[in-house]
């Protein structure tokens, strides 16, 4: 097994290679505005570091968010197209699950929260690092304060809003290394991974115009 994992759903552009036993190479850069530019050179670097060619990869794993859409799509589109060109399966994994896995908490519950911008967070509650209790959601921190009261939390969304998440720790962003390890574990256990489809959680901002604007001066 040789898994190429990538995620662009948070400000991190992160890539990792996993050979079924361990992560053999990885790269993470934090730059929320340059996902498109950074991802492919990072893939190239990780492959070079591991000394393998892309055609040796047996599967692709991509974070499916939730995350700010423009960046999120870079990873998904790249994964999809690699899958098409190489003829290998493309798997999705919830980005929050990757963060929960990296948090390495054996006994929860705890919260994973990432920055959804517009003063909101993407979040979910976990039993432990491998078990999600709630569906990923997007909310204002103040609106979920009661539901997460007393729970420790990880992720940039938690670190950003200490009023709602007083006990917040690292990791701040997801790493592809964690996603790859989680995927390798699940695949080895014969689990189905989710389809590589984006978790947007919000509708596109668009308003149906009621009427055209009258131009005749009143």
């Amino acid at each position, binding site marked *: 097994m040789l898994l190429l994992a990538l995620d662009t759903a948070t400000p991190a552009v992160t890539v990792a290679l996993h050979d079924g036993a361990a992560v053999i190479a990885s790269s993470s850069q934090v730059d929320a505005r340059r996902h*498109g530019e950074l991802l492919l050179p990072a893939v190239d670097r990780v492959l070079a570091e591991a000394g393998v060619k892309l055609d040796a990869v047996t599967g692709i794993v991509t974070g499916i968010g939730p995350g700010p859409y423009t960046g999120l799509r870079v990873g998904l589109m790249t994964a999809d197209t690699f899958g098409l*060109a190489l003829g290998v399966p493309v798997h999705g994994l919830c980005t929050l699950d990757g963060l929960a896995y990296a948090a390495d908490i054996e006994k929860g519950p705890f919260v994973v929260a990432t920055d959804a911008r517009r003063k909101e967070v993407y979040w979910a509650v976990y039993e432990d690092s491998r078990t999600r209790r709630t569906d990923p959601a997007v909310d204002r921190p103040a609106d979920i304060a009661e539901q997460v009261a007393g729970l420790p939390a990880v992720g940039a969304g938690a670190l950003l809003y200490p009023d709602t998440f007083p006990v917040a720790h690292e990791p701040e962003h997801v790493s592809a290394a964690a996603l790859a390890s989680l995927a390798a574990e699940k695949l080895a256990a014969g689990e189905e991974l989710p389809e590589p489809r984006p978790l947007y959680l919000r509708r596109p901002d668009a308003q149906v115009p009621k009427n055209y604007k009258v131009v005749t001066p009143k």
Partner: protein
Amino acid sequence: MADEPLVLGIETSCDETGVGIVRGTTLLADAVASSVDEHARFGGVVPEVASRAHLEAMVPTIERALKDAGVSARDLDGIAVTAGPGLAGALLVGVSAAKAYAYALGKPLYGVNHLAAHICVDQLEHGPLPEPTMALLVSGGHSSLLLSSDITSDVRPLGATIDDAAGEAFDKIARVLNLGFPGGPVIDRYAKEGDPSAIAFPRGLTGPRDPAYDFSFSGLKTAVARWIEAKRAAGEEVPVRDVSASFQEAVVDVLTRKAVRACRDEGVDHLMIGGGVAANSRLRALAQERCEAAGIQLRVPRMKLCTDNGAMVAALGAEMVARNRTPSGWDLSADSSLPVTDPHVPGNHDHDHDHVHEVSKENLYS
């Protein structure tokens, strides 16, 4: 000819997911998935809706294009993609796909200019572009007069709209007339049964002191809307056919007049018209008439090649390969305001401090 470059082109600058395949100047496939129906109820293209649709449609559209062309991805000589101008988020989906595809297949990548591609597509219809070529590009996003002596390296803007694009004016007037979105085709249809001289609508920027090659459609749009509103306020029926014909005539009169004048002034004997508005039947007819009178050869590709598509991107990519232009780097980014003077975005190979685009050949899928 088998030794002409075989190139796949990807276009996602607006609401069409286009994947085209060409061999030199021969069109092999032109697969397009459009999200226009999803935008109709919003009365215009919604960028986020378009970006989501591109992500969904990309892989199936690439597969369809390869099947239509009857070629294997392995045989491609390059992958071209619209790097800009266009909607930033939409462009980024296409650029991401093109980069991953080119990298995985071990093919050179060419990030190209959407406007130059609109011009170059005519090679698929009428053979190699005359050099120089004058081009009038008119769509919902652009209205420009461009002069090119080499479509891979030299595109000079002579004029452009200073406010709305021509296609936008069609959409807005269609909305005022309650004809739906997009406005171009429906106005064209009504105009056929109307009198183009029924109402004297203004011709923007045609005064003696106005810039010779720039366009303005905002004043026209307001004038038409006011005229309609006045009719309605007076309780009279709006003559939709005459309004459509007279409005359309005002647009195409200015477009063709300025394009022919630019040809004359620059001593160019070929005019190509591209972009979605080139599908307008009156624009085609009037351009033909005026070009003939001026001794100018008019080249307008078939309608499907005028609207946004992947074949135009492939056509320009093939020309880049044929003329040995420097491919783009793997750090190519989408540039929503890529200047028209940049027909493509070459990689930067001579910056020693930046190894980002130095890709080790061994990692390429070979």
